[in-house]
């Protein structure tokens, strides 16, 4: 069969290689047949609970084979799944549940209390459904009346589904500068276009052992999942805790004999910093891919020197254009530590455009705004035509010219015809691969007690973490300045990766001529406090 929808990849592999392993997670293994039949069974339960094509189903399930079963089950019901970050604070998940108006929230024992908090104190129509792992009695300990409780069971077939490739498959919520996360709609066709290009470009085979490193609410994870299933390969899920100790990540790649590693560069730099990669390490590894932010060249050199047998590819693309829109295979180990690494050329079916304010190409080599067009373009933000219109331009070059997305990144086209990035036009930053709008942090600070005024800036670090988030605070009159208390209060509203790591107290915030907070002054003050030896 040809795959028309994302779940068809699983159905096809269950026919071709039913007993081959699809997913590995710690000691847990799931075959393609199990994945197919378990997701059939859960799909029937979703359908019985009233889930129809286009309904949203939120997943509060930590990364695991069960989480992937839930994802495939949602798709088989024609539903749109909304993966939630189980480590995110309740307030932020609240906004996402609200915005997605999910019919169901799927949860497991370990996320039961969070599910309870999310659903009990609001007048929401979302109902919980418990997914029972092998030994997890959840419903008995909860006060919520579940829509259903699903013990892991199998079914030979799935309910009928009239889904089409242009249907939305998932909503991925990204940071929003107004404090409200934006739900990016991604269709089956969006993901499949990239996956089909990638498995042929990278020559995937069923023998591949693919890493599943990013969290499921991160769009890179969709490449790991669907790329693996399209090829009939094996997906190795890495737990988030693995990240803390770099040598454990190396052991994970080595021990599982992975053939592909795909992650944000900050983790690769972190591993380089602690020198955990041995010369000619990971003999089975064929490809190392990164996406999400710039990979500092010195760390890339570190990796390329140690692993001459591996192909190194930089992928680039925001969530709004699905996984990645351009690629650049680094042909040889760079010799200079400051050599810029381009984002390369468009992936199949995509286009990269560097344009000025009049949507004209700047003079040769000039810097302009980077726009993306083609098969990866999301239909827009969920229930948000205004924010969609602001960045998705409809046929700007006349009828039939197609839509383009304004990335907010600045770029140029080099003499080598490759595209190079030159920072951002706005205050969106990347920290450890996470895309963060500084505005979202400032909005959260406004309602944090103990703070009269606050401003947030980011400083590019030379370390592995990308941008370092710094917060300038004017405390409430008579209040002590206790960053650890403020940070803890802020953690009730923001995920940990958005929390500022440096704090300075101000009597008042410096203003520029327009009466706005002077971020240039703040930046230099933080820079001095972080680099006392320089000043």
């Amino acid at each position, binding site marked *: 069969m040809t795959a028309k929808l994302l779940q068809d990849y699983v159905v096809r592999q269950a026919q071709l290689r039913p007993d081959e392993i699809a997913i590995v997670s710690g000691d847990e293994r799931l075959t393609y047949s199990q994945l197919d039949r378990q997701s059939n069974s859960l799909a029937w339960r979703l359908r019985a609970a009233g889930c129809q094509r286009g309904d949203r189903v939120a997943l509060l399930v930590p990364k695991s084979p069960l989480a992937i079963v839930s994802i495939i089950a949602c798709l088989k019901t024609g539903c749109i799944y909304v993966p939630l970050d189980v480590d995110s604070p309740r307030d932020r998940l609240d906004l996402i549940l609200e915005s997605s108006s999910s019919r169901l929230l799927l949860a497991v024992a370990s996320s039961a209390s969070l599910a309870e908090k999310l659903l009990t104190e609001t007048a929401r129509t979302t109902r919980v459904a418990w997914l029972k792992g092998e030994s997890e009695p959840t419903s008995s300990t909860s006060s919520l009346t579940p829509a259903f409780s699903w013990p892991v069971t199998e079914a030979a077939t799935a309910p009928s589904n009239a889904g089409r490739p242009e249907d939305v498959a998932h909503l991925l919520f990204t940071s929003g500068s107004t404090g409200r996360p934006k739900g990016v709609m991604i269709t089956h066709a969006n993901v499949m276009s990239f996956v089909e290009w990638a498995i042929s470009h990278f020559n995937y085979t069923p023998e591949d052992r693919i890493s599943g490193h990013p969290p499921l609410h991160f769009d890179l994870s969709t490449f790991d999942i669907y790329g693996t299933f399209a090829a009939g390969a094996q997906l190795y899920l890495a737990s988030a805790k693995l990240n803390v100790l*770099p040598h454990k990540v190396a052991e994970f790649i080595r021990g599982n004999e992975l053939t592909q590693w795909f992650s944000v560069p900050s983790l690769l730099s972190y591993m380089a910093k602690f020198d955990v990669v041995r010369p000619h390490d990971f003999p089975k590894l064929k490809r190392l891919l990164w996406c999400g932010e710039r990979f500092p060249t010195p760390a890339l050199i570190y990796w390329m020197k140690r692993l001459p047998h591996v192909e190194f590819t930089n992928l680039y693309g925001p969530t709004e254009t699905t996984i990645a829109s351009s690629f650049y295979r680094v042909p040889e180990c760079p010799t200079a530590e400051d050599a810029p690494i381009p984002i390369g050329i468009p992936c199949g079916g995509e286009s990269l455009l560097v344009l000025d304010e009049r949507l004209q190409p700047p003079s040769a080599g000039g810097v302009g705004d980077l726009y993306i067009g083609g098969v990866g373009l999301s239909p827009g933000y969920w229930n948000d035509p205004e924010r969609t219109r602001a960045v998705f331009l409809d046929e700007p070059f006349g009828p039939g010219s197609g839509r383009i997305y304004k990335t907010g990144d600045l770029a140029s086209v080099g003499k080598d015809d490759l595209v190079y990035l030159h920072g951002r036009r706005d205050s969106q930053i990347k920290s450890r691969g996470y895309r963060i709008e500084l505005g979202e942090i400032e909005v959260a600070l406004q309602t944090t007690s103990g703070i009269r005024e606050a401003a947030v800036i980011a400083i590019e670090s030379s370390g592995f973490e990308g941008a370092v988030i710094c917060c300038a605070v004017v405390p409430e009159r008579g209040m002590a300045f206790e960053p*650890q208390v403020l940070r803890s209060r802020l953690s009730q509203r923001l995920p940990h990766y958005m929390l500022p790591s440096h704090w300075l107290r101000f009597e008042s915030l410096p203003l520029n001529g327009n009466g706005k907070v002077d971020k240039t002054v703040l930046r230099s003050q933080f820079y001095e406090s972080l680099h006392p030896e320089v000043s």
Partner: protein
Amino acid sequence: MSTCVERIQAIFSQILYREVESPQVDLFETGLLDSMGLIELLFNLEQQFGFQLDIAHLDLDQFRSIESIASLVESSGVGQAS
């Protein structure tokens, strides 16, 4: 003289700006310790207690709580130095 636990608590609150309710709190479950925090923590442990930790021999469980970090420091025989 402050105890090893107190000194590690001070690193968390004064340098990492992270409020840890008790020395037994699970730092990973609560998201209080991530890769960025670990680097700063290691740096400060090395500065304050004057020893080198070999990351290749470290295990996650040794960093699970302030209490377990304290026993790691004490087992390296330098916990009482200041």
